[in-house]
């Protein structure tokens, strides 16, 4: 049981946490649309988006089995490294205060303001703007979920655990969304992206190595080492790149100007 969990644990965790972030972002947009333009159109757009995703996965999913395994490992690995290190880079910069934290409440306010500018909702007709907005949000965030699930699950025959992790995240977010009917602004999004960035980067580097025919010490277990490595480096970087207080900078600069 322990050995099984050490194998599927990282996959399930990465899929769950990564999908959780995407579902929260999609929920923010859908709630904004529902609040401003009406829930009927928001839910129609959401349903059509989910259907579109299901069709894409059904049509393109089986094609993965046709790709030679080393090519799949290398391609998925490179995409994971690009995706994961992008998230990790931003999460470190946000945690250090170099760039502002993402705020779902602000995103919600921006979306509702934009939707109000697009004209009043037509309660008795199809609200095309609302449907399109909800559809785009669900498809775009959903594609990220699909990518995360396939990337962390396909190469190591872990699609079922990865899908289970994503499904659990989706159910959790939908339940909270239905209960609260407002953006989940208290979700520690940057912490989640930090964790997911580390996991996805570790997976990516591992699969790139496998795809290039490199030998990892400890085989699959090296993913744990890669995870801890990225975590340690990231935790060291946060205080290292944190901006100094402006008073300290001002007093440091002034003596040089006098010279």
């Amino acid at each position, binding site marked *: 049981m322990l050995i099984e969990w050490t194998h599927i644990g990282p996959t399930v965790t990465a899929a769950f946490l990564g999908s959780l972030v995407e579902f929260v972002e999609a929920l923010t947009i859908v709630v904004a649309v529902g609040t401003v333009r009406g829930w009927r159109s928001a839910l129609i757009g959401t349903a059509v988006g989910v259907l579109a995703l299901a069709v894409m996965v059904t049509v393109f999913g089986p094609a993965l089995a046709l790709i030679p395994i080393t090519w799949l490992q290398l391609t998925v690995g490179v995409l994971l490294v*690009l995706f994961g290190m*992008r998230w990790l*880079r931003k999460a470190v*910069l946000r945690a250090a205060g170099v*760039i*502002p934290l993402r705020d779902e409440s602000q995103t919600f306010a921006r979306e509702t303001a934009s939707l109000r500018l697009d004209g009043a909702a037509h309660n008795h007709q199809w609200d095309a703007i609302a449907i399109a907005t909800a559809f785009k949000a669900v498809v775009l965030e959903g594609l990220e979920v699909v990518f995360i699930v396939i990337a962390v699950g396909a190469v190591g025959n872990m699609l079922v655990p990865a899908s289970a992790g994503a499904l659990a995240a989706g159910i959790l977010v939908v339940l909270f969304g239905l209960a609260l009917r407002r953006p989940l602004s208290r979700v520690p999004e940057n912490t989640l992206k930090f964790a997911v960035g580390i996991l996805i980067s570790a997976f990516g*580097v591992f699969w*790139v190595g496998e795809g290039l025919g490199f030998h990892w010490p400890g085989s699959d277990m*090296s993913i744990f080492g890669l995870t801890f490595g990225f975590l340690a480096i990231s935790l060291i970087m946060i205080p290292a790149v944190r901006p100094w207080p402006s008073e300290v900078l001002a007093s440091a600069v002034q003596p040089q100007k006098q010279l």
Partner: protein
Amino acid sequence: MVRKMFGLFVDDGSLAVIILAWVFGLNFIAQILFIRQTWAAPVLFLGCVTILIENVLRTSRQPVAAVEKTKAAGVKAR
């Protein structure tokens, strides 16, 4: 929509380019030096970490990072 999908993987163009150059450059070097079985994997990881550190340090020192921060705080930049 296509631009947003592209943006899932490429945010800072230099980060993506350097990662790709490192991955394929290391593969080329590993084939020449026959280091595939022993050191190539840890070197791959160390290279990726170095790229991440360099990019984060460089971004944190850019003036635009400070401007973005002051904009977010609602203070007008000079």
